């Protein structure tokens, strides 16, 4: 964008009625939806280019990274870094260059020709370009008791709620990186953890599996075990989880896992519910389809990070995609056509 000071401010859309010019709404250069690593990285790049940028998010700045206990695979931190510290650093860096942050939930994106109308729960904002970087959230298992005991023994955030389980028994459901990483974190509180893995092996990285080996005194892994039901009862006037019923798939027998709480990490689902009213194309799971320039099926609207179809669900790649999206947005705002006709990637 232009380096002039006035272009760093939102420019009003004007409508001329007779001789009178009426300002309607300011049009931001870019509105970013989400404030996780992808959006924060994109915002660092756009604001450094003097592209006026506002981020809207309803959750914690840093997204899922901010609620991840420890991040060992983000390049540049030889000893690893806590998710909260990484999120805070990204936030401060984006703020340093002038990114603005607004709390709010986006409900719709409407193409208004010269700009996009972004409908939030508090009103409406306008932008020349939009970046969707709403990331993903932990998937539910979808078993009886999961919804009923949500936040009463069923949790999806170990760093938030793990401390309630000091010297208590826990069940962790899942076999991927998140499940193993968070189970390791929970060993600092729990007296014992049963990890229920549907498959016959972990999908988690070797490094995490080796780390888990250090905690065998507290952790028992149950492979080939489905999670079928979460059972609770009233204890001391408070509805609490008391056990998980699973099935050992090798024998077909039901197995009870007595526990005080369940932490669920069985994969990720994209946060794209709010796009269902739009013309933005999603894949069959709900991730946003983009062309090689990270532009969605609605020109001027880009997507980056975990929410994008084909994303590899890593903080490092989300940050890379954010930077790429920022460069593509700059190109778009300069009025250049993208290098080729947008092609929707097959998924």
């Amino acid at each position, binding site marked *: 964008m232009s380096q002039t000071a006035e272009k760093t401010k939102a420019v009003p859309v004007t409508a001329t009625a007779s001789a009178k010019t009426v300002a309607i709404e300011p049009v931001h250069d870019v509105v970013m939806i989400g404030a996780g690593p992808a959006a924060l990285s994109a915002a660092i790049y756009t604001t450094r280019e003097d592209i006026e940028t506002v981020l809207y998010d309803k959750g914690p700045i840093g997204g899922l990274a901010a*609620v991840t206990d420890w991040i060992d695979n983000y390049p540049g931190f030889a000893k690893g870094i806590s998710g909260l510290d990484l999120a805070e650093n990204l936030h401060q860096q984006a703020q340093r260059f002038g990114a603005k942050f607004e709390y709010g*939930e986006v409900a719709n994106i409407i193409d208004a020709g010269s700009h996009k109308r972004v409908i939030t729960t508090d009103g409406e904002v306008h932008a020349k370009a939009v970046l969707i970087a709403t990331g993903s959230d932990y998937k539910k298992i979808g078993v009886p008791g999961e919804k009923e005991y949500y936040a009463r023994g069923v949790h999806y955030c170990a760093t938030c*709620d793990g*401390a309630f389980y000091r010297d208590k028994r826990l069940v962790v459901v899942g076999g991927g990186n998140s499940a193993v990483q968070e189970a390791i974190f929970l060993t600092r509180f729990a007296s014992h953890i049963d990890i229920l893995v549907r498959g016959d092996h972990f999908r988690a990285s070797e490094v995490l599996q080796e780390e888990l080996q250090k905690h065998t005194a507290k952790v028992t892994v149950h492979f080939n075990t489905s999670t079928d039901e979460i059972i609770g009862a009233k204890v001391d006037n*408070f509805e609490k989880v008391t056990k998980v019923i699973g099935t050992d798939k090798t024998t077909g027998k039901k197995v009870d896992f007595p526990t005080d*709480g369940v932490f669920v990490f069985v994969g990720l689902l994209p946060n794209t519910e709010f796009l269902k009213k739009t013309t933005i194309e999603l894949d069959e799971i709900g991730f946003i389809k983009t062309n090689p320039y990270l532009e969605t099926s609605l020109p001027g609207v880009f997507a980056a990070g975990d929410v994008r179809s084909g994303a590899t669900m890593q903080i490092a790649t989300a940050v890379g995609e954010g930077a790429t999206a920022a460069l593509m947005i700059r190109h778009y705002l300069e009025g250049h056509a993208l290098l080729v006709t947008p092609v929707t990637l097959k998924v």
Partner: protein
Amino acid sequence: MSVTIISNKKLKKNERGHTLMVKNITIFTTNTCAYCGMVKKWLAAKGLAYEEVNLEQNPERQAEAMQVSGQLAVPVTVVTRQDDTQSVVVGFNLAQLAPAVL
């Protein structure tokens, strides 16, 4: 005569239409909870003071947090008004938090 103007943002109307000031705000947190930090930052940005109860440092107060929220989760924000009525918000939920302190 001096007139003190109190921001309407700090007042809440009760059923009779009287405005009520927030008397105090307590947040139950844990060490590693990112959402707790968001609530604290949001309150600070609004210029609202709060007392933080870290449940890892004060495990004896966990039962209190559970009782007031009905949940085993943090952050729990308890807003007490001048007439001792309370609003309890679990999580970083601005849809509930904003009206509770406005």
